[in-house]
């Protein structure tokens, strides 16, 4: 594998989102953005300058925002409906279910500042239940990009895909993941980032770089860790999970409650096909006050936390 020139620094994936969306919009006049007064938090100010008639701001009204998105799709547009993930997914869940998923509408839902990105603002502003809600909706593709490259790829894929998509975006800074120069984004496929047969770590979104760092920590102890980036939560790559179960144990890590998200999806596969212990790292529920970083640290959502969970699983096995 030829290694790409490493991109250093930390990135806010919203930039990759809007830059890609602007580039797509310049090529395809069907692309429109729909927002709930969230031009700033969605970083769509420049999009509005370039394409003023294609930025549709419905005001603070999420149910209408998603319904309008479905209507725009009916009228031949390719709407990117952007809002804070907490309001987009919770307030408009029935519109996402009925108007988008059940109606198979060509709507792209972009949940901004997902997970615990709004840390100190508290549980009303955290979006840590959304994967559980949305991955059960048949026909809705659910993507959780891990870095700027994958964000851009996911946006491009969504624009070209004729159907409903939810893209879970974060504002938390993440590094660009090390990838070969010829890396390709494949929807519905886990990305193997590191080989290993002692234990597997499956992560998504902001946790993927922590999973890779955890693998480094474990390697120092002589433990070879398989690291999978599960960017697509629905449809789910059961095959990769079942293969990962061959290592004898799986740790999952996600910015989500421990019920029903990535870990839940992994557990469903494993239980049915190849039962092995699964340790699900995530949040217990409504969280106390604290920064996003602090909240994640507190719940083992860090390199050290993932490594410890892996060691615990391996110890149980012996």
């Amino acid at each position, binding site marked *: 594998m030829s290694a790409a020139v490493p991109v250093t620094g930390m990135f806010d994936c919203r930039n990759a989102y809007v830059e890609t969306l602007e580039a797509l919009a310049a090529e395809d006049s069907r692309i429109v953005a729909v927002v709930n007064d969230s031009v700033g938090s969605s970083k769509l100010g420049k999009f509005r300058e370039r394409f003023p008639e294609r930025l549709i701001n*419905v005001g603070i009204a999420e149910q209408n925002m998603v319904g309008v998105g479905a209507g725009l799709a009916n009228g031949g547009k390719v709407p990117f409906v952007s809002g804070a993930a907490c309001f987009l997914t919770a307030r408009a869940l029935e519109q996402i279910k*009925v*108007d988008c998923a059940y109606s198979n509408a060509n709507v792209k839902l972009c949940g901004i500042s997902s997970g615990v990105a709004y840390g100190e603002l508290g549980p009303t502003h955290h979006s840590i239940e959304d994967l559980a809600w949305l991955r059960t909706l048949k026909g809705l593709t659910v993507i959780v990009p891990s870095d700027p490259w994958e964000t851009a790829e996911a946006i491009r894929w969504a624009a070209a895909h004729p159907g409903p998509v939810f893209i879970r975006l974060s504002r938390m800074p993440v590094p660009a993941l090390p990838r070969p120069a010829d890396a390709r984004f494949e929807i519905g496929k886990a990305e193997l980032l590191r080989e290993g047969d002692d234990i597997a770590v499956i992560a998504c979104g902001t946790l993927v770089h922590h999973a890779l760092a955890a693998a480094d920590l474990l390697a120092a102890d002589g433990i070879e860790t398989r690291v999978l980036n599960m960017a697509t939560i629905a449809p789910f790559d059961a095959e990769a999970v079942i293969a990962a179960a061959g290592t004898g144990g799986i740790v999952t890590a996600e910015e989500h409650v421990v019920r029903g998200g990535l870990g839940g999806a992994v557990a469903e596969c494993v239980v049915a096909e190849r039962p092995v212990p699964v340790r699900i790292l995530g949040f217990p529920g409504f969280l106390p006050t604290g920064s996003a970083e602090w909240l994640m640290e507190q719940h083992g959502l860090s390199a050290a936390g993932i490594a410890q969970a892996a060691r615990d699983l391996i110890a149980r096995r012996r």
Partner: protein
Amino acid sequence: MAHRAGQGHPGGDLSAADILATLYFGVMRIDPATPDAPGRDRFVMSKGHCTGALYSALARAGFFPVEELTTYLQPGSRLNGHPNRAYLPGVETNTGPLGHGLPVAVGIAVAGQIDAADYHVFVLTGDGELQEGSMWEAAMFAGHRGLGNLTAIVDRNGLQQGATTEDTNALEPLADKWRAFGWEVMEVDGHDPAALLSALAIPAERRARPLCVIARTTKGKGVSFMENQAGWHHGVPSDAQLAQAFAELDAELQA
């Protein structure tokens, strides 16, 4: 249909029937042979539970065989209790939960506005449905955008599932509410074909504002024992009631 299926929403079907007949056979520019034609007029059934009326209109407009109406609500039928566009051509968006159709219709109208397209968007809402907040989110935005290519028709039969709208959560003064949200408003007899035709006709010049047609209707219209009875929101006529209902409707047609 409700009699054969053993369930249904005959009260609301009958209050909406004349409105649907006017739209499908007197107003809309649609072709069942090309149900996805980009320039078609759109109809969105926001009161998605009244499929008895909607399916009858779609079948008679040629979107599927009239004989298929006998499969209404039967296992595996395309004629589900609420419309599904994956099953049936002519259905623009799936509805059922109230409060969904108007936002979607607004979105279609926004697309038409951006494209300066020629098509017109019609949406039929229940009156009880206007207790849903999402309807007013959409109404506010339609007024703000000046969607002159949008007509909302309110099936104002005055009854919801258990009682009158006014006893439950009053809607009046309803016309004032729509006007305050930036709409033109017309009030018509929702069972008078000529009045409906003139209210729903697509204007040659696009309006500057969306239009709300408040159609004063009678729930259970045309069947004496159903008229204005909340109990017939959902209800199934017995054999004798069915015979009486057909006799009354036939007599009215003859008159």
